[in-house]
């Protein structure tokens, strides 16, 4: 019986022969050209991956998540205001039941208490949620181009409300009874929708500004409670 070996045989064949004639050892693995190549490359990449991966990051706290989500919402609001610019200094003051901001001053931010503030912010956000859902419905009726972004905003708002609610449960902050929003009657003209949208977004932007600062202030207090 003659054993012939074709010099032009493919690597698979070579490997087959090698496996046939060599005892099974660590070397046998390296003999597989493709796997050994891959193995070497992976080894070489190891320091790169080690360097590339950031220093083990501190897990964002719940308050960090809250402030980040608020900032995200604020950005969405600003985008909407910018995209659907409605230049008017005179506000119609249609929404009578929006959270009251006239009693919130910069000094108050230094003296915020954790539980009441979280509860208040939660109630305020729920109220805004109602208003924006109403605006979304009205905008859909008038085929307003801002609808997709409004839908996204409401989704993000709900996410913030959920995060906040979780935080409230953690620190045992009470949930305030929901306020009844007084929404304007049906809007006949596209102009009314624009005006209402502008007013609501302006209010919400400032609310987010205040809420973001409140979360920044409350962060050390929340860490102390947990």
């Amino acid at each position: 019986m003659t054993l012939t070996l074709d010099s032009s045989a493919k690597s698979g064949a070579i490997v087959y022969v090698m496996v046939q004639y060599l005892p099974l050892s660590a070397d046998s693995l390296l003999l597989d050209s493709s796997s050994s190549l891959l193995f070497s490359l992976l080894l070489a990449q190891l320091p790169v991956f080690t360097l590339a991966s950031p220093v083990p990051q501190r897990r964002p706290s719940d308050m960090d998540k809250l402030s980040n989500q608020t900032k995200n919402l604020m950005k969405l609001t600003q985008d909407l205001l910018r995209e659907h610019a409605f230049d008017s200094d005179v506000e119609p003051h249609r929404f009578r039941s929006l959270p009251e901001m006239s009693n919130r001053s910069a000094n108050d931010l230094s003296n915020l208490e954790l539980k009441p503030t979280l509860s208040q912010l939660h109630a305020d956000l729920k109220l805004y949620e109602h208003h924006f859902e109403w605006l979304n419905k009205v905008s859909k009726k008038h085929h307003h181009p801002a609808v997709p972004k409004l839908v996204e905003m409401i989704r993000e708002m709900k996410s913030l409300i959920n995060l906040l609610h979780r935080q409230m449960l953690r620190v045992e902050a009470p949930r305030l009874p929901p306020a009844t929003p007084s929404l304007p009657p049906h809007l006949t003209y596209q102009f009314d929708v624009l005006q209402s949208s502008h007013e609501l977004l302006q209010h919400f932007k400032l609310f987010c500004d205040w809420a973001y600062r409140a979360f920044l202030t409350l962060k050390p207090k929340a860490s102390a409670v947990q």
Partner: protein
Amino acid sequence: MPGLLSSPVCLTVIWFLSWSLRPSCAQIQSDEVLDIQYGHLESNVTLACGQSQIRTTVVWRHNQSSVLPWHTVTSDGRLVLLHVDHSAQGHYSCYDDRGLLLHSISLRLGYPPGLLSVSCQVPNHTLVRCSWEESVRTFLPAQYDVSYRGNGHEWRPCVVDVARRRCDIDHPSFWQTIHTMRVTETNALGSETTYVRFKLHELLKPDPPESVLVKELQGYPRRLVVSWSFPSSWPQHDAFPLLFHIRYKPQGSMYWSEIFSKESPAVIFDALAGHFHHIQIRARDDVNSDSQWSEWTLSSPAKPWEVFTTPEPEEEEFFTDDVVVSITKPETSTAKTYNPEFEDEGNLGLVILLVLFSVVILTTVLSLIFVVWVRQRRRDHVTKQELTSMVKMKSMPI
């Protein structure tokens, strides 16, 4: 004689005489002091010679001079100044035909108030400072009544500094969409109210950062360390973070490079070695992107550390700053040499990346060589075995 003077009868006579003579002189004196009349510029102004109707001829004088501005005198002795200008202002006196002073008036001319140009500065969340300028110069003293309110809320007074024509609102309700200010200017000729609406969050403009300090970094000829402090008017509180914008350029260059930082100090990594640089910083509220940037600080000159004979030390990170670098001008990277002009120690990351890449390539090449070597060895082994089998086969009896 002293006894006579001190007698009650004589004292009564003196008192009566002085009382009866007093009114005429005192009236004139008080008129001279108190009687100020205001008139509208570029119109006709009538000056009366006292309260009573005068039947005799009166003579008017302007600042003790008999030369009067363009005028007429009515039959009842009133002086009518025609189409008055500023030169008609001054002290007017009327005399009877015997030269006795009858009445004195001080005339001041001007315009009634017009609308004001009101501007407000908001250096932080706790103070709003509004000042105003006349759009029409009235030339007359005025009083101001200023109040403000948030959208849909009641009016609140604003404390006025009349001399500086400004008023300060302390601790405003900042997070309201629109505020309205009402400034009423009143002078002798009339009154006018100006309403202005403003958005505090858009007017927010911090004062420039303070105590700016730029230092070289020993051993790094392309680095500069910039430090500063918050504007003293800005609250030092977690709730009010600031974003800082640093710009720098070599002396004589037109192009600024820039970096943004939330904390001091910040490190400039790509300064031009051996050159003086100008560095400026400004600040903005980090939360509210609709707010305004502060003015730039004054230019701070600085030069990076210079290499003479000392070799560059090992690269070590001295600063763990979270600087967000965005270089506007594309940086020209140069090979690393000991020439201080071209030493490129700033691109440590790039160098590390290149070294790692070389390692990857080298490892790959070595692996290939190893595989080829193993294959070759295997082939030799197989050939040897083949030969052995052939020899064996040959030796086998057929």
